């Protein structure tokens, strides 16, 4: 295990070095919040990938595929599809018409105080859901990485919390971006090697590999079954399964384009053209990564077996244990360290989006009525917010303890993004008649419906048999039958936003539509790069 520790400590040391360098370079608000808008296309592409590929897409996804076969692979496809919408309709207009947050784009035509307050609320909700997922992953990983050292889940969670707070508080967006770039490269390299090792096991005969995945034997409710893991339906079974899958796909198609920590990355580049090229870089990195994770997940199902995965520390550890099987303890160490780096990078990204939103949307624009604060003050507020958010996330993660699959937890955050953020963002950029009332209705309905349905659904409510390992939070029959709420909450978010606009009239917002459209499409008056 010393190798694992060495790799991990080397990563931490180099990221702290980056943070020190970034802290010395970073002067002023645009440097702190948007890395001076000087990140290049490939850098931002890797940073977006590093921001997006979380503990969920590594630890959670491989485990899910190893247990659910094709139904897990569905998540791999879903993680990628959202980027097409980002490329075609979100990245460039956002870069051209905003400054630091999604709230900027909404506040453009609408009354800034209510829409910024709600945009910040939904940003902070998504950030919290995402961060809990990452923290739980970090704790589970440390239990494996430092097994026997006496460092447990709680210590690990606090450690992650302190580290990411250091990155964000001292290094701002510049340090966060470089931590994400390095992490994306490490994760991609690890995935390539691990995929190679899986295929090498089958002497690089792809058909032999898939042949083995077509007859996987494991125990289901005490009975030995043999299943083809490329067949859909292992998890999402009738009566509600198909609808659940449809629901999940809506979350994927629109959720990514509403994730605040992804959206803020497009403010770090000098112009819309670079934003566009960076999305394409991100699509190449993320697409190849997810395509390879299908091999890793199926490989874990074949080589470890679902029974073994369930018996040993649960779904989140299937990937690292596959690495141990194929590459020994040294490779396990490397992979675990990279997985830990993944978590740090994502948490730092989520945290900076949350603290930026608080400083810029809430402090400057809601509390101080849009009178621009001094750069020193807004950066100070963001730093305090970052510390508060970090402390809150640590407390929640410790209180929840290591438990459910981290991918499922992260999907909740994405559901809020798809139902609350995406509808108002899309309508604000493309619909002249959109009003403040519509934005308030859309954000409120999307956020409330998503959270309420998750709480009323089978992820939170359920009756566990005595002696079950993981227990539902509420011991009662679920009121809402679907695990994924998108099929109700996404249309509801859109309908509320449209209905709210139709029952109100806002000539000011309509008059400013021309300005927004011209700015969004030409970059006239867009924020410039600065030191």
């Amino acid at each position: 295990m010393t190798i694992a520790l060495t790799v991990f400590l080397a990563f931490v040391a180099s990221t702290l070095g980056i943070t020190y360098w970034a802290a010395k370079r970073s002067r002023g608000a645009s440097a702190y919040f948007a890395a001076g808008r000087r990140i290049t296309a490939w850098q931002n592409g890797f940073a977006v990938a590093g921001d997006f590929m979380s503990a969920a897409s590594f630890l959670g996804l491989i485990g899910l595929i190893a247990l659910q076969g094709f139904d897990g692979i569905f998540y791999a496809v879903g993680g990628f599809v959202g980027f097409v919408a980002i490329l075609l309709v979100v990245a460039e207009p956002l870069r051209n018409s905003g400054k630091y947050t999604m709230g900027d784009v909404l506040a453009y035509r609408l009354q800034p105080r209510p829409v910024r307050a709600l945009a910040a609320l939904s940003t902070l909700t998504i950030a919290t859901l995402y961060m809990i997922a990452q923290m739980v992953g970090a704790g589970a990983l440390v239990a494996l990485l430092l097994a026997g050292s006496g460092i447990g889940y709680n210590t690990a969670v606090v450690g992650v919390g302190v580290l990411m707070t250091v990155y964000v508080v001292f290094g701002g967006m510049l340090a966060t971006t470089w931590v994400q770039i390095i992490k994306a490269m490490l994760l991609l390299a690890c995935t390539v090697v691990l995929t190679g090792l899986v295929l090498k096991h089958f002497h690089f005969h792809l058909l032999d590999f898939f042949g083995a995945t077509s007859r996987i034997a494991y125990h289901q409710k005490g009975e030995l079954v043999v299943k083809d893991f490329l067949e859909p339906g292992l998890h999402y079974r009738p009566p509600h399964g198909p609808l659940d899958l449809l629901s999940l796909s809506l979350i994927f198609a629109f959720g990514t384009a509403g994730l605040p920590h992804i959206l803020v990355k497009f403010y770090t580049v000098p112009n819309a053209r670079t934003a566009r090229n960076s999305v394409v870089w991100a699509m190449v990195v993320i697409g190849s990564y997810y395509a390879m994770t299908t091999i890793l997940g199926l490989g874990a199902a074949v080589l470890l077996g679902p029974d073994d995965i369930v018996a040993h520390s649960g779904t989140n550890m299937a990937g690292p244990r596959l690495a141990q099987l194929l590459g020994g303890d040294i490779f396990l160490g490397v992979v675990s360290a990279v997985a830990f780096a993944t978590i740090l990078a994502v948490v730092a990204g989520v945290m900076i989006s949350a603290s930026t939103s608080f400083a810029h949307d809430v402090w400057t624009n809601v509390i101080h009525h849009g009178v621009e604060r001094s750069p020193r003050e807004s950066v100070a507020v963001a730093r305090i917010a970052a510390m508060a958010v970090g402390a809150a996330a640590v407390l929640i993660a410790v209180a929840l303890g290591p438990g459910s699959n981290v991918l499922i937890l992260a999907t909740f955050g994405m559901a809020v993004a798809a139902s609350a953020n995406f509808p108002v963002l899309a309508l604000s950029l493309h619909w002249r008649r959109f009003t403040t009332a519509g934005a308030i209705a859309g954000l409120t309905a999307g956020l409330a419906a998503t959270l309420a349905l998750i709480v009323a659904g089978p992820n939170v409510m359920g009756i566990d048999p005595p002696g079950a390992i993981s227990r539902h939070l509420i011991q009662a029959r679920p009121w809402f039958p679907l695990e994924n709420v998108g099929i109700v909450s996404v249309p509801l978010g859109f309908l509320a936003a449209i209905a709210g606009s139709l029952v109100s009239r806002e000539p000011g917002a309509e008059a400013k539509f021309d300005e927004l459209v011209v700015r969004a499409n030409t970059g006239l008056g867009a924020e410039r790069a600065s030191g």
Partner: protein
Amino acid sequence: MDSPQENRPSSSTPGLDWARIAGSQPFKRLLAVKRMFIIPALSFFLLSFMSFVILVAYAPKLASMRVIGTVNLAYLSALFQFVLGWMIAGLYLMASEKFDRLTKDVLAQTDRGKIDAPRGAGE
């Protein structure tokens, strides 16, 4: 360093006649050309993704049909989503060369555009 622009609320840039630019021929042409690409490309991709979803959700028998060895239609359709996404990205990059040229036409027409464009770029 922060430019003075930093301290101004970004929602007020007086002096430009936005409605006039929005109504001008070059700008209308830019929007039309963009829409001609973006709307079909996005619709096609979403249609392809939703067909994939409906295939695996509602026609699991068909999705489980083996095509090459034990590799079935479901897995091949999953991989196809990646390939299609990359193809659309490539086509969009090519098409965007034209968008950028048309954007220059709009900016050339706007006097303020010429003054605004280099401002702050080298700070």
